[in-house]
């Protein structure tokens, strides 16, 4: 079981900055995120977009902000459970919590900080009849193990980078790869588009555009899909169908944790961003209170105040004084120390 002081759900900017603020108070953090990489929306949706309202940064790319936050928190050695979604929470008699992910990983912590943004990113599912029946029976939204597709027929649907990249990758593994997209144009990196074009000429990718998968067929697992191109319909035999239409955030299981929810956000007390369950905090875009603004900079502020309260819960009766990093420096959990050089006062000998 993973043990930590503050268990942070969501590794976006607010969650990552919590690691730093907690670290200043000598509290250790562990983060859970449904995405395979930290950064939340900043790395998943808009890594190449500039942000102009981070104090002190006239302009910073969302991907670089993530990189900087990781660098800033590194000295406090956060743990990560990535690619797993926090599913259930259990409150123990001593007031601490056990959070279990969809893959069964258990985490134990006295404090839980939900920094889940808009929720966990779930695949966007095409609206096809009986789609649930085929999920994991030949229909997958993620490619976990490419070997599954060796010498199989695969149909991929979608027009973004993941559809392009996986078509290219599977072209060498699967016996047949068909890429289907609603437009002739793809929304992906130029060299990926170029590569798909090459593989099409080599007959290694069967490209059907502008077209759509409009029906799924099979007894227990996928056996064929209907591809509609204009007025024409075509039945295409396949072993796998992989729709890659991006991800959309859903509040998900957190919504059933007994927290006060208002319009898909968790209600908190602005004193310390604690929820209605003592010991569970909610910070960043996931929370709501009168005057709430969903801004990264507000998430940073909320994380900072939250850590003070977390410290007091963990160290009852102990006095806590705000320390300035300019004065005290930073002692990392990794043994590093950062501090400003001492001013040297030298007398002038006359």
């Amino acid at each position, binding site marked *: 079981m993973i043990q930590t002081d503050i268990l942070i759900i969501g590794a976006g900017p607010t969650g990552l900055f919590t690691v730093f603020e907690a670290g200043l108070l000598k509290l250790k953090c562990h983060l859970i995120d449904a995405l395979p990489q930290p950064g939340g929306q900043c790395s998943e*949706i808009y890594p190449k977009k500039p942000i102009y309202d981070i104090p002190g940064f006239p302009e910073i790319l969302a991907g670089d902000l993530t990189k900087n936050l990781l660098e800033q928190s590194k000295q406090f050695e956060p743990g990560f459970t990535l690619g797993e979604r926090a599913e259930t929470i259990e409150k123990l008699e001593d007031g601490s919590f056990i959070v279990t992910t969809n893959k069964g990983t258990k985490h134990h912590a006295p404090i839980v900080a939900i920094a889940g943004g808009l929720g966990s990113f779930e695949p*966007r599912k095409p*609206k096809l009849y009986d789609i649930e029946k085929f999920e994991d029976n030949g229909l997958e939204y993620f490619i976990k193990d490419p070997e599954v597709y060796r010498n199989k027929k695969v149909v991929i649907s979608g*027009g973004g980078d993941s559809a392009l990249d996986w078509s290219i990758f599977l072209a060498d593994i699967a016996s047949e790869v068909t890429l289907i*997209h609603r437009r002739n144009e793809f929304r992906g990196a130029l060299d990926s588009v170029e590569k798909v074009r090459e593989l099409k000429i080599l007959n290694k990718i069967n490209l059907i555009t502008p077209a759509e998968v409009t029906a799924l067929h099979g007894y227990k697992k996928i056996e064929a899909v209907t591809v509609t191109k204009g007025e024409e319909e075509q039945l295409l035999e396949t072993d796998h169908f992989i729709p890659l239409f991006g991800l*959309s955030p859903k509040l998900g299981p957190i919504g059933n944790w007994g927290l006060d929810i208002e319009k898909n956000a968790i209600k908190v007390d602005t004193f310390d961003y604690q929820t209605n369950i003592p010991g569970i905090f909610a910070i960043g875009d996931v929370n709501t209170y009168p005057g709430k603004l969903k801004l990264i900079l507000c998430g940073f502020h909320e994380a900072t105040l939250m850590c003070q309260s977390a410290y007091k819960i963990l160290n009852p009766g102990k006095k806590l004084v705000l320390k300035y990093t300019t004065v005290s420096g930073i002692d990392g959990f990794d043994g590093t120390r950062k501090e400003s050089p001492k001013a040297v006062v030298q007398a002038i000998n006359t």
Partner: protein
Amino acid sequence: MSDIKIKIKDREGVIHEVLAPTDMAMNLMEVCKAYELPVEGTCGGMAMCASCQCYVLSDQQLPEKGEEEEAMLSEAFYVRNNSRLGCQINITENLEGLLVELAPEY
């Protein structure tokens, strides 16, 4: 500059007539959010999520679709010929009387 009147049909079929300012650099997605209509605007208006997709039911001259909007709509669900992303429609005076319908939640 003055406010314009636009009509937004929600997913239950109720039409909301709202006033939208033309001098605040607002787009249709933001107007929906300002009136607490059920529009998520997940990506914040970058044409990257399609949660603000709507169907344009009136015939005002709208700004042309950009590359990013075209691409997003080609991946979104429930897309029709009159689909637009609300975040890509800036509120200008010539949109007076615009009528749109929110697309189903994706």
